[in-house]
C-alpha cells in the first residue's frame, strides 16, 4: 500500500492530487464524471469580494498543445460563495478539502475576501498571476515588493493554510518565492497560464475578445516543471504544481522536481478521467520504484 496523503502547508490532503482553479468550476460540476475519491483537494474558481462579470466572448481558442483563455475571472462574490456555493459543495462532495481561490483589485480587497472566508473553506489560494484581468491579479505578482505586501495583508486576515499562486512569466522565480516565504505564505502553487495571443489571419483580428489570454495545457508542462524545480531549490515551502498534467508521467515529473502535490487542470476538459488515470499511474510508479509514499517522491531526483 502506497501512502498517498500529503500535507500542503497545513492542508491535510487525503491524496496528492488537486484540481486547478478555473478548470473545475466551484467543485461540484464534475460530479458523475470525475472520481472524487482520488482527489486530495478541489480548488474553486476565483472569488473576489464583489461579483465580477468576466470578459466578452470569445473567451477561448484551442491551439496545438493547449488552450488560450481569457475568461476574466467571472465569478459570484464572496457572499454568494459562502451562502450557497460552499454548502452545496459540501453536500455534493464528501471528504475532499476545498481550497478557495481569491483575488482582488487592491491589497485591501484581497485581505477582505480572505477574512470573509473565515473557516468555511480548508485553505486559501491567492491568485496574483491572472493574465486576463487588468486591475487585479497579475499586477500583484510582477513585483516582489508588491507581492510581499499583498501576501502579508492576507496572512493577517486568515488563519487558514495560505497558498500563493505565482506567475510564470518572470525572469527568475526566486525573488517571488522568497517574498512569499517572508510574508508568511504556507505553500506555493505554480504555474498560472502563460500570457498568449491567437490571431484569426483571415479576418486579421485577435481571436479573443480580450485580445490576449493565458496558455494552458500540454504545451506548458516542461516550462512548469522547470519553474517548480527552481522554486523548490529556493524554498522549503511545499509546492502545488500544475501545468499540462495529462498523464501520470507529468505528475511524477512535478513531484520529482520538488512538488508536494499536483493539480490537474485543462486536461479534465477533454478527459474527466484524467484525475483517476494520473492517480492510478502515480501509485503504480511508487510501487514499481519502491516508494512507500507519494511524499517520498518530492524532490527525489537521482543525484549526479
Amino acid at each position: 500500500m502506497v501512502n498517498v496523503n500529503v500535507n500542503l502547508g497545513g492542508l491535510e490532503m487525503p491524496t496528492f492530487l488537486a484540481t486547478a482553479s478555473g478548470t473545475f468550476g466551484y467543485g461540484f460540476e464534475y460530479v458523475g464524471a470525475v472520481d472524487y475519491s482520488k482527489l486530495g483537494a478541489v480548488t474553486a474558481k476565483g472569488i473576489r469580494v464583489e461579483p465580477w462579470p468576466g470578459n466578452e466572448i470569445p473567451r477561448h481558442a484551442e491551439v496545438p498543445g493547449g488552450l488560450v483563455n481569457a475568461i476574466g475571472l467571472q465569478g459570484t462574490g464572496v457572499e454568494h460563495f459562502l451562502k450557497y456555493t460552499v454548502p452545496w459543495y459540501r453536500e455534493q462532495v464528501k471528504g475532499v478539502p476545498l481550497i478557495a481561490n481569491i483575488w482582488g483589485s487592491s491589497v485591501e480587497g484581497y485581505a477582505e475576501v480572505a477574512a470573509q472566508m473565515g473557516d468555511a473553506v480548508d485553505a486559501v489560494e491567492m491568485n496574483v498571476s491572472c493574465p486576463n484581468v487588468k486591475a487585479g491579479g497579475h499586477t500583484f505578482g510582477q513585483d516582489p515588493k508588491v507581492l510581499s505586501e499583498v501576501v502579508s495583508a492576507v496572512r493577517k486576515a486568515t488563519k487558514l493554510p495560505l497558498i500563493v499562486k505565482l506567475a510564470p512569466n518572470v525572469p527568475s522565480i526566486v525573488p517571488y518565492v522568497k517574498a512569499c516565504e517572508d510574508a508568511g505564505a504556507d505553500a506555493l502553487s505554480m504555474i498560472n497560464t502563460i500570457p498568449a495571443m491567437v490571431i484569426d489571419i483571415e479576418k486579421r483580428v485577435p481571436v479573443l475578445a480580450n485580445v490576449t489570454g493565458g496558455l494552458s495545457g500540454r504545451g506548458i508542462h516542461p516550462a512548469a516543471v522547470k519553474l517548480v524545480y527552481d522554486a523548490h531549490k529556493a524554498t522549503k515551502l511545499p509546492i502545488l504544481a500544475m501545468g499540462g498534467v495529462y498523464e501520470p508521467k507529468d505528475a511524477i515529473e512535478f513531484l520529482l522536481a520538488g512538488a508536494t502535490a499536483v493539480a490537474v487542470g485543462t486536461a479534465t476538459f477533454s478527459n474527466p478521467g484524467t484525475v483517476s488515470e494520473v492517480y492510478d499511474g502515480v501509485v503504480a510508479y511508487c510501487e514499481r520504484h519502491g516508494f512507500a509514499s507519494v511524499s517520498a517522491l518530492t524532490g527525489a531526483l537521482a543525484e549526479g
Partner: protein
Amino acid sequence: MIDEKCKVIEHRELGSGYRFISFEAPKIAEGATPGQFVHVRVPGLEASALRRPFSIFNAEEGRLELLYKTVGRGTAALNGVKPGDVVSVMGPLGHGFPLKCGGAALLVGGGYGVAPLYFLARLLKAQGLSPLVFVGGRTKDDLLALDRFEALGVEVRAATNDGSFGAKGLVTDPLDDELIRLRGEGGKFELFACGPDPMLKAVALRATGTGSKGWISMDRHMVCGVGACYACIQKTVRGNSRCCIEGPVFAAEDLVW
C-alpha cells in the same frame, strides 16, 4: 451526466456536408431530454483536444442519434469514425426545452439547428400535442430530416432562400403566416427554436412581449460543457450565463441580444 463509452451503430453522409451518426448509449439515452446536448471526445484528434458539443437529434431505446455539419477540424475528424468504433461521449448535458406547451407548439429550425427539434416533436406528439415544424435553409440541401418528421406524422413547413424547396424566403415567413392566423382566432402558442443567431433573434422577438413563450436554443463554442470553465457565455437578464448549463435553451424573454 456521465462519460459513456459508446459504440457507433451507423454513420452516413446526408449530402452537402451534413452527416448522421448513431451510438449505443443506453445511459445517456435514458436520461436525455430534447434540447440537451452531448460532449464528444472525437477520435482522430490529438488526445488533448477539446471535446465537441452536439445537440441530441434523438434518444430512443438506448440509441443516441446526432445530426451534424462538417464545419471545422473537430467535425472533419469525426467524419472518419466508423460503425463499431467506441467513442467517449459525455451527457446528457444542459437544460433542454420544456416538455409542455400552453397552446400551439411551433418549432422553428434553421439548417442543422433542426437537430434538437425532431426529438422535441416526437415527445410533444407522444403527449397528444400536434407540433408544427418550420424549417429553413439556403437551399433544399440545408433542410434536414424531413423524412423523419414525415414518418412521425408531423407537419413541416419549409422556406429556402433560393426557393428550391418550400416558400422562397426566410423561415420566419411561413412562421409569420401561421402567427397571423393564430392571432386572428385568438389562439395561444409557444415557440421553440434552434438555428443561426439572426434566426433565433427573429424568433425570440416574436415571443417577447406578446404574452407567448419562446424557448431559444443557443449555440456557443464550448470548452468543458458542464459549467466549470465559463467560456460559453450568453448574455441574459441575469448577466453572463453559461450556455452549457444554464442553457443551451433559454427563455426568449431572458436573452439579451
